[in-house]
């Protein structure tokens, strides 16, 4: 299996919410507070020594997903093909247990009371993504996820983890490799607000 995942560089993120908006539109999410991808603004310190970074967050398709382990019906599946975690909504009983197991608040519940979350834009459009062909084989699923597609600074990327690691800094790659069962996200360390104005943004 070639684990598929995300790459994120907080120094490049300007907190514009284009990623979360694009996700909502492409996946046809129209249910109040439900957001498969969201941007958290994290502050540190007090004025004048205050810094704030923005972090784009969604499901990180963990190597050993806690949400899958607690689900009574195995509605959550870690796909063998690409490591993407999908929810088969036809098996979900809406018990919310998975949302408490997820450390990232990725799993959401809409008006139908069933679990839903990011599936890496498998199938390219509304739906739970379950049963979609592997990203490498499907014409539609090979499209870049909406969040990555619409990131204006290149802070977000997605693809096979090995490819993402090749383009990442040594620190980010080491951090990723230190957690075998952790999230499939290559996260660049934040160096502060100064990094946002870099010329590659």
């Amino acid at each position, binding site marked *: 299996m070639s684990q598929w995942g995300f790459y994120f560089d907080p120094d490049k993120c300007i907190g514009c919410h284009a990623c979360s908006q694009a996700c909502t539109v492409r996946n046809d999410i129209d249910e109040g507070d439900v957001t498969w991808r969201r941007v958290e603004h994290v502050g*540190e310190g007090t004025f004048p020594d205050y810094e704030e970074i923005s972090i784009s967050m969604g499901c990180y398709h963990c190597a050993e997903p806690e949400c899958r382990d607690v689900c009574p019906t195995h509605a959550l599946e870690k796909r063998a093909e690409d490591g993407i975690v999908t929810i088969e909504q036809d098996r979900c*009983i809406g018990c919310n247990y998975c949302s408490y*197991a997820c450390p990232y608040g990725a799993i959401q519940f809409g008006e139908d009371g069933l679990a839903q979350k990011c599936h890496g834009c498998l199938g390219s459009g509304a739906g739970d993504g379950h049963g979609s062909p592997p990203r490498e084989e499907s014409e539609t699923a090979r499209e870049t996820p909406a969040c990555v597609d619409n990131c204006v600074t290149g802070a977000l990327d997605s693809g096979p983890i090995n490819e993402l690691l090749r383009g990442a800094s040594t620190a980010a790659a080491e951090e990723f490799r230190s957690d075998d069962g952790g999230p499939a996200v290559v996260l660049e360390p934040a160096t502060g607000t100064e990094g946002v104005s870099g010329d590659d943004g």
Partner: protein
Amino acid sequence: MMDSPDGLVWLTQQEYGWYIAAYLFFSGLAGGAYVTGFAADVLRVRSTDPAVDRPMYSITRWGTVLALGAVGAGMVFLLVFHLGAPVRALLFPILFVNVGSWLVIGTWIIVLFSAVATLQGLWVVWHENPAGRAAFPRVVTSRIENRFDVPVDSWLARVASRTHPGPRRRLLCSGVGSALALSMIAYTGFKLGDVSATVPLWDGTLLPALFLASALSIGLAATVGVTVLFDGVEGTNVTAFSVADDVVILGEIAVLALFLTTLASGGPGAVSAFGLLTEEYGLVFWGGVVTVGLALPLAISVGLIALERRVDVHASDRLRRLVRGTYTLKFGFVVLGGVALRYLIIAAAYNAPLST
């Protein structure tokens, strides 16, 4: 939640509502009430005093009836208010395939407990002609039978008579039911504790112990409380049961103190949960859980024991009514404290923050 920017990502999502707190309360009450009923059953069988027989059996009936009512109420809150697809959940024998999930383990414990408690209910209410108000379900079925000419009471009595395994085996069966009741109480703690890495409030070790102590306490209080309220204090060994409840309450205080100490000395999420419990929800915690649920019942108990040592409380109707009312009040406080505790366990359950 966050007083000053600390460089952490605080996730404040909450999915469980008050109905899960209600479910936790009722399943705890059901387990505790059943175990109390079983304890009274054992005391009755072991006692050689014939005067004990009727009041103890009354406690057993109340415990069983309360357990069945509470487990039913818990299911209503779970299925009707909480689950997104309750009908699908009813297909659990087919659909619940992840046997390692506490939700699946808990479901089977509840199903088995409900089956044993239903049989016990059938035997202690519809076998023979039980006296006392705990047998009110029998009054209901008799009225239905008389008014609508539906032989529901005769039918249930016949089933109870045919299935009754004899006193000893019924007690043995009730012992199995008690083990299931204790498992049902503990499972709710283990289920929440299993995700304590995400929700620091739900300590995987201490929460099951806290739920166990609290459930036994509220179950005992509710069962003996309704027995005293409806059947009086005579022969019920209410003082002994009350002291037993006090011992459980003291155990609960010890676990709660350890629980708070662990939270206060934990990571940012645990410290935040401690702050939520003791400050933001301080009124419910200090007022509801600590004062009403733990301190007042102990204080009332001390007062009642002192009174019972000084005067014969059965000497006059007035004193008897006073003692009966005070015990009912004490047990009522314990139950209210149990409600407050479960409300807080859900309301203050926030995700641990993420570092950036």
